[in-house]
Structures are given as C-alpha cells and as structure tokens.
C-alpha cells in the first residue's frame, strides 16, 4: 500500500497521488472523518467514563461490575453489518422505535434521512465507543486508591478539592489516552459505515472503497492507496500521543 501510494499507473514515482489525496473532495472526506471521530471519541469518553465510575463505585466482585464488563467486552467489538442492521431495525424508517413514535405523532425523519448520513454514523459509532471506553478506562479508575480520598478528607479537603487536586491529575492522562484510542477506533472503522451509508462516501474509508471498486472512476487504485497512507499517518500520530500518555498513566497503577 505504501509503495502504491507513491507511484502512478505506469509505475513511475510521483507525489501526485498524495497531493490529490489532500485536495478537493478527499480533503472534505478527511475533515468529515476527523469530525466524526472527534465527536464520537468525546461523547464515548464522557459517557463511558461515567459508566465506568458507576461500576467502580459498586462492589468489586458484584454482579453489576461483572455484567457491565462482560457486556462491554462483547459490545466494543460489535460492529459491521450486524450493528447497522440492528440500528435500522430499531430507528430506521420502519424501525420499532420509529413506528412507536410515529403512532404518537413524532416523525424523527421529518428533516431528512439522517440515519444514512453523518449524524447516523455518529449515533451508531457511539454504540461501540462507550463499551470500549469502559474497558480501557476501568483499570485507571481501579488504580485510584481509597486511601488518597481519606487522606484528602483528613487534611480538610472537600470532594471538589479531591477531584481537582488528586484524582483529576491522576486520571487525566488515562482519560485523554483512552479518548485518543476511541478516536483512532472511529477513524479507521469501515464495516459499519459501509453497511449503513450507500450514497456519497462521506468518510475516508468509504472513499477508498469507492476508488478500489468503482466501475465509473477507473485506474484510481493508487489514489486509494495514497488515502490509506494518509490514514496510517493520522492514526500513527494519534497512537504516538497515546503511548506518551500511557507512560504517565502507568506511573500510578503500580
């Protein structure tokens, strides 16, 4: 793929593919991909962290924790055609929830078929982002020793002081690292989007699919590889920052 990104159809080295990959419709596709990944990473991180905190606040061997962690382990990998179908069956045009609301006079598709466009992808991606956040963030929350809370209270600090001065700084690297992991996960997800969106290739993985399999735009496979190379660069940067943050996180987990 990397080799193909730098050659044109006749095999000569060129940067034309890379230059085309960051211009015009492909630049907008990158922008939308980044937008989608950022939104679902933030929403998934916040909601996932809250859920993880709820789980940690309960019994360490309790049923709630076991059920949530097992379910998260499964649902974090739940994607592709099955997830797309599940959402269409629930909130699609003839979905269960859609019909339920329609009978009560609420038409959720009054402003258009959003579920097959970017807003629909945001909703569906969040579904596997939250469980992933729970799995990744739970160890960090486990690492918060109750002794720290007690020590803070002994020294006269309020809950707010504890969170601002102790737990916050300890959890921050883990939180932002997990958010970056969610970002990379959403950025590179393909199967779910391919199953859900059939018009207009709004994000980069779908654009790559178009270039590889289109019967209208021919000979663009190397441009597809250049787009793939661009994606690898973005994910590499994200993972690099994640690795740096992980080093700071593990400091407190020993």
């Amino acid at each position, binding site marked *: 793929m990397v080799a193909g990104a730098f050659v044109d159809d006749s095999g000569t080295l060129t940067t034309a593919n890379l230059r085309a990959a960051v211009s*015009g419709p492909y630049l907008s596709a990158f922008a939308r991909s980044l937008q989608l990944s950022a939104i679902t990473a933030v929403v998934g991180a916040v909601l996932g962290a809250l859920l993880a905190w709820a789980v940690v606040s309960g019994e360490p061997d309790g049923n709630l924790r076991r059920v949530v962690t097992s379910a998260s382990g499964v649902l974090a990998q739940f994607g592709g055609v099955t997830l797309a179908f599940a959402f269409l069956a629930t909130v699609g045009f*003839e979905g269960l929830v859609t019909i339920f609301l329609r009978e009560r006079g609420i038409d959720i598709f009054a402003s*258009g078929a959003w579920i*097959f466009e970017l807003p629909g992808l945001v909703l569906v991606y969040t579904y596997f982002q939250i469980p992933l956040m729970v799995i990744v963030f739970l160890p960090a929350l486990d690492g918060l020793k109750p002794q720290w809370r007690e020590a803070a209270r002994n020294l006269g600090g309020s809950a707010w002081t504890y969170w601002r001065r102790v737990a916050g700084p300890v959890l921050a690297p883990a939180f932002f690292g997990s958010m970056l992991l969610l970002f990379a996960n959403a950025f590179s997800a393909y199967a779910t989007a391919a199953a859900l969106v*059939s018009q207009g290739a709004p994000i980069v993985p779908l654009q790559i699919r*178009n270039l590889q399999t289109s*019967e209208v735009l021919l000979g663009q496979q190397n441009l597809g590889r250049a787009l793939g190379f661009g994606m690898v660069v973005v994910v590499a940067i994200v993972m690099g920052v994640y690795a740096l943050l992980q080093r700071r996180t593990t400091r407190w987990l020993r």
Partner: protein
Amino acid sequence: MRLLPDRSRPTIALLGAALLLTAACGDAPERETASTGSDGAVAAATATSAEDFGGFDGLVEAAEAEGTLNVIALPPDWTNYAEVISTFEQTYDIEVNSAQPDASSQEEINAAEQLAGTDRAPDVFDLGPAVATANADTFAPYKVQTWDDVAEELKDSDGRYISDYGGLMSIGYDADSVPAPTSVMDLLKPEYRGKVALNGDPTQAGAAFAGVVMAALGNGGSADDIAPGIEFFRQLKAAGNFLPVDPTPATIASGQTPVVIDWDYTNAAQSEALEGQRNWEVVVPQEALVSSYYVQAINADAPHPAAARLWQEFLYSDVGQNLWLKGYGRPVREVAMVEAGTIDEAAYAKLPQVSGEAVTLTEEQTAAAAALLSGGWAEAIS
C-alpha cells in the same frame, strides 16, 4: 508492577514497528499454484472460434470434459440470469459456480487478478463498457458463431468483448403511493418528498451513473455536459425528495423506496416479481433516453477455457438471447432475430416503446462525466 521489563522494551518496540510496516506494505494475498493443464486445455485457451475445436460438437465435448464454469457478479434477478444459468446447466453437463452476485464490474476484474492461477478464478465476465475497454488486454479473443449478427459499434473488432444486452434508464414507482411521473423534472414535486432513490452511487456503479446522465438530459444537459444532472440531484436533495437508501427488491417490496431510478429491465423484473403485492410501474422518460449495453468477455487466464467459450455460444444463441429478453433486457442480436423471426414475440412486445433516439455515451464522454462526478457528487448530495 511494570507490565514490560526494561530490557525487552526495545525488542518489543522493534517487533511492533516491523509488524506495522508489513501490514502497511503487504496487500497481495498468497497465490495458490494452478493445476497443470493438458494439451487440450492449452488449445482451448487460445481458441478464437468454434472451428478451432473442430466444430460446435467438439466445443461441447471439450467443455463437458472440463465440467465446471465459474461465473461472477450475476444476480439471479438481473435480466433473468437465474434461468439463463439453470438452462445452461440442464442443456450441457456443466456445473455453474456463481460467485459474488452483488459485485461491481471492477470487483470482477479485481477477483480475476487476486484468484489468478487458481481453480476459482472467474471464467467469464459481464461488465460495464468502461471497465471492459480499460481491461481489454486481459480478455481472450473469441468470436461466437453468430458474431456477424451484432453491429460493429457493439463489439470489439478483435473479438475480445461483445455487447450482450442493453436497456434504457427508467423510473420505477409504486403507483399506489406516488403519482405517475411524466418526466424527470416531475420528481422535484412535493408529492415525492423523501421517496426518490437512485440505484447506487454514481461514482461507484454504472447504473447510477446512467441515472445521473438521464437526469442531465431531462434538465437541459447533454451527453457532453452532465453538470445539469448533478444539479438536478442537488435540487432533489434540497427539496427533501432524495432518499440516500440503496434500493433492493426488499426495500421496494417493503415500501421504503417508492421511486427507484434504475435500468428498465431491473425495474420491470420487480414489476413482475411483486405482482399482487405491490403495484410497481415503470416509465421511461421520452425526453431523456439513456441506453447502455453491458459487455461479455472471456478471461484470458480462465481455468475452464472451453466451458467459457461454450457459455458465450449459449448466450448468443437464440435460446440465450430470448432468455435475456424474458428478463426485459434488449438482446444485442435483436435486429437479426426479428428479421429471422426467432425472437420471442410476447416478451419483445413487453419492452418499452421508444419514440426517439437513445443516447449512449462514448468513452471520452464517460471519462469527462466521471471526472465531473468525482469532484461534485459528494458535495451535491450532502
């Protein structure tokens, strides 16, 4: 407790980097070694007509000796391919393996490349004209017995590919939920709010591409300038009429896609299949006639070359052509068969009547239109 001891970290980092590099660089799958063919197989692979087999019976014998045919991208409800395949299997002692019915033309070529040298490679292709001309040197030249019945512009002079069936772009609609559209521009009316679907993405699929060309002709454009077609869909989206759902027989039957822009043979096949269930009608807008023929070719590296050639002979015989006609496709030997009286009159009468000259895009026009679409389609319908 540390997860990774200090000493192993550099090694593990190096391994990780190596893995990443191989993942980024490697995208060609393993090639299986092909079984060695006999002299007969080699002769079949270079045969350019039935004479090279010593006559049609020689071809049948060689094909039945091979016993299998690999086809790809032939949906059973696309111009009656289900019956075409089953009739071929019954007439000759050959088993047909139909792979990937929903693949696009480019995916057929990709499959041939990836499976080259194996027994599962596709023997024959049914492709859009653009993909066919771009990959003509991977096809084996072969002229069927009825070669002369086909017009010059509908085949390759060297015999590498030949048009098989054609159709006109049409608007299929559910007569019970929407009024009958009389022209392309009618679809912009408020009665069609949230109801108009296009079969595929025009930067992906040939059928959707032809749909945009039809919209261009209906909106004042021409074969040289399809920008009005993109403009039409922009207006359709702005009016809230455009439905970004991929229409399938299931969505048509369930009523999710009450109006579908697709080839007339596909829409007509739905009419027939849903009789009694849904009142699916088809109209071909007379001011925007877009016609295209799909193209048939034989893989030069076909694992079953004789069977592939027999398949071609079958498709271009009266039986094969009439089976496509039964699926509402316009067979390429139409003119010759009407003259000889071998055409299926009943099925022929069901084809839409055209009152004008249909537009077929040339290679240059297709390339220009494709370039326009790649730049403007995503913005127009987002």
